[in-house]
């Protein structure tokens, strides 16, 4: 059984935001409009956090793409009363929209603020409504949602591999953000396969995990120059 994970090379990320756009397109994430976005209700399953280091004029700009960290010990899963948030066998932190009653407890428990609430029924600005992905359900008002590591692509690739009678090779599965990253800052793969690219990166001495001290055991590794 694989354990899906991701490695993010912060030294490669240039903050272009292609991953954010790709994620919106792939996962049918509603656009909320300028007013709601100003109130902090824009739902970006992956976001580019932008930090400045140092004092002006000696400033260095760094970017950190943050998505659901697919934690091994996920705080969001424990607190969900209806098992809408639970752990799959392949290490994914799954969200079952139809089971969600909208307590929003999972979002409070998430240290990464990687969970999003549908305040209204989803809507898309024209012509975005013409490019909805048929593999992903849309979420009604009152439901939590979050990055799934593009589980529809994972399952699709697994089914395809089984149909072809072959093995799933490293790199066969690419979540939308990974696929769209021009500088290959994002790498996705099986962490239990010692030869996969993601696995090798996650063991890199440059690697750290986000808020490791909270004890969530994330499956996303951030690689950065150690100063």
């Amino acid at each position, binding site marked *: 059984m694989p354990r899906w994970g991701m490695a993010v090379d912060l030294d490669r990320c240039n903050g272009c935001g292609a991953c954010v756009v790709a994620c919106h397109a792939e996962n049918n994430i509603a656009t909320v409009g300028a007013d709601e976005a100003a109130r902090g209700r824009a739902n970006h399953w992956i976001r580019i956090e932008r930090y400045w280091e140092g004092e002006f004029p000696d400033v260095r700009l760094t970017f950190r793409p943050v998505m659901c960290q697919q934690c091994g010990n996920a705080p969001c899963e*424990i607190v969900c*009363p209806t098992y809408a948030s639970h752990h799959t066998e392949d290490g994914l932190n799954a969200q079952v929209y139809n089971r969600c009653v909208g307590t929003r407890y999972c979002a409070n428990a998430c240290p990464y603020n990687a969970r999003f609430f549908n*305040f*209204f029924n989803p809507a898309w600005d024209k012509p975005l409504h013409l490019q909805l992905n048929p593999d992903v359900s849309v979420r009604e008002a*009152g439901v939590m949602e979050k990055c799934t590591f593009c589980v529809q692509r994972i399952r699709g690739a697994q089914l395809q591999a089984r149909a072809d009678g072959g093995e799933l090779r490293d790199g066969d599965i690419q979540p939308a953000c990974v696929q769209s990253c021009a500088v290959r800052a994002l790498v996705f793969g099986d962490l239990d396969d010692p030869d996969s690219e993601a696995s090798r990166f996650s063991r890199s001495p440059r690697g750290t995990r986000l808020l490791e001290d909270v004890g969530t055991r994330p499956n996303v590794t951030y690689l950065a120059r150690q100063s």
Partner: protein
Amino acid sequence: MTYPPAPLVDDGLLRPLVRRSSSPSPPVISSRIDSDLLRPLLLTSSRFYVVAAFFGAFVLAGLVAWISQIYFGFGISGIRRPVYWGFYVTNFVFWIGISHAGTLISAILRLVNAGWRRPVTRCAEAITVFALMIGAMFPLIHLGRPWLAFWLFPYPSERLIWPNFRSPLVWDFFAINTYLTGSVLFLVLPMIPDFAVVRDKSTGLRRRIYRALALGWRGTPRQWHRLETAMQIMAIAIIPVAVSVHTIVSFDFSMAPVPMWQTTIFGPYFVAGAIFSGIAALIIAMAVLRRVLHLEAYLHPVHFENLGKLLLVMALLWGYFVFNERLVTYYGNGPAEMTVFFRTQRDSFAPLYWTMVVCNFVVPLVLIGIRRFRTITGCVLASGAVVVGMWLERFLIIVPSLGAKYLPYSFGTYRPQPVEIVITAATFAAMALLYALFTKIVPIISIWELKAGEHPSPALIPPATEEHRLGELHL
């Protein structure tokens, strides 16, 4: 079920209450108890309807607000990422806290057989039941899809999936369920003999209704013993349940890895705060009842003084817990914790924080600690401050932590919207309305318990207790 028969012999004793004069020489006080305490049930002035309509209008507005929130979507509230809990959960914790007034106070005072409790217990237990009903509404109101709330109940469903017993929200469901069941029964049990009194003193439809409510109560020694034993068992059972309820409410916060939430002190801190706000609510309710229903002969300054002293103790305990919580955080000096710490201590939430400290600590200490101010007015003023302060406390536990959770990029804040404010106001109106209606249906002071306290047998009660001292005051 056997109901008592119609009077076997009607010897003219069933006269209207007001003209009743020559019953077989009942004790004088006793007759006054009946007429004083049954008056609100039998006579209703037009002022009552005005008050009921006033509060009813607020409740209606709250209902409209909730329906519009369901209809238009949760977005019309002020909730936003990352502050996903706001006024609703504040109200939930606050009202569940208020509910600790009654059952806990009356159960403890019953167990230690404090004589001065007798006129107080029912007011307190009624607060518990109503506050709990209101508080238990909020998990529903704050749900994204409230029409699916029953998915939290443990029942075998076609979805083949049960609630997650590892979730604090499911613990909440069990705890509130047990507490509400226990509190309602704890309130209703000692009402049965009083229903029998109303049954015997009224006529017509009211008589038929109270005959059903009295459940065939006659008042044999067997019934009295069973009632008192049942009350004793309930009192013993309800105290740990009450403690568990607010501990579990605190677990809603302390089980999540959120700065300033994940702390072991939250259990006792919340329980102490709950009793604190509960006593304050009880003092206010008693003062209003005393004034409106003219119960000056039953609710004496000594009751307010005793409850005021309890309030003072809880204020000190509250201060102690807050100091503990703050000091440990300060010395831990974690970056995430310190962000929240200074947010409340000196940044954006500081005005609210220091208002809370003044309301919860300084005001009670001054108004109740100094004997000259420890009057009914003083106690009520202090209680009002405490209710405000405890509401702020719950708000300040929830919002600043959620708004400053670890990653500075996603910090945020929260501003309540009209829908939340209206619903919050409606809950206070609902409390007042339910309480007003309750006084019209049930004698607000337990008649039989008051009478039972009239004849303290010197052989059974040591002379130096509170009971004896108050017995001389004809309580």
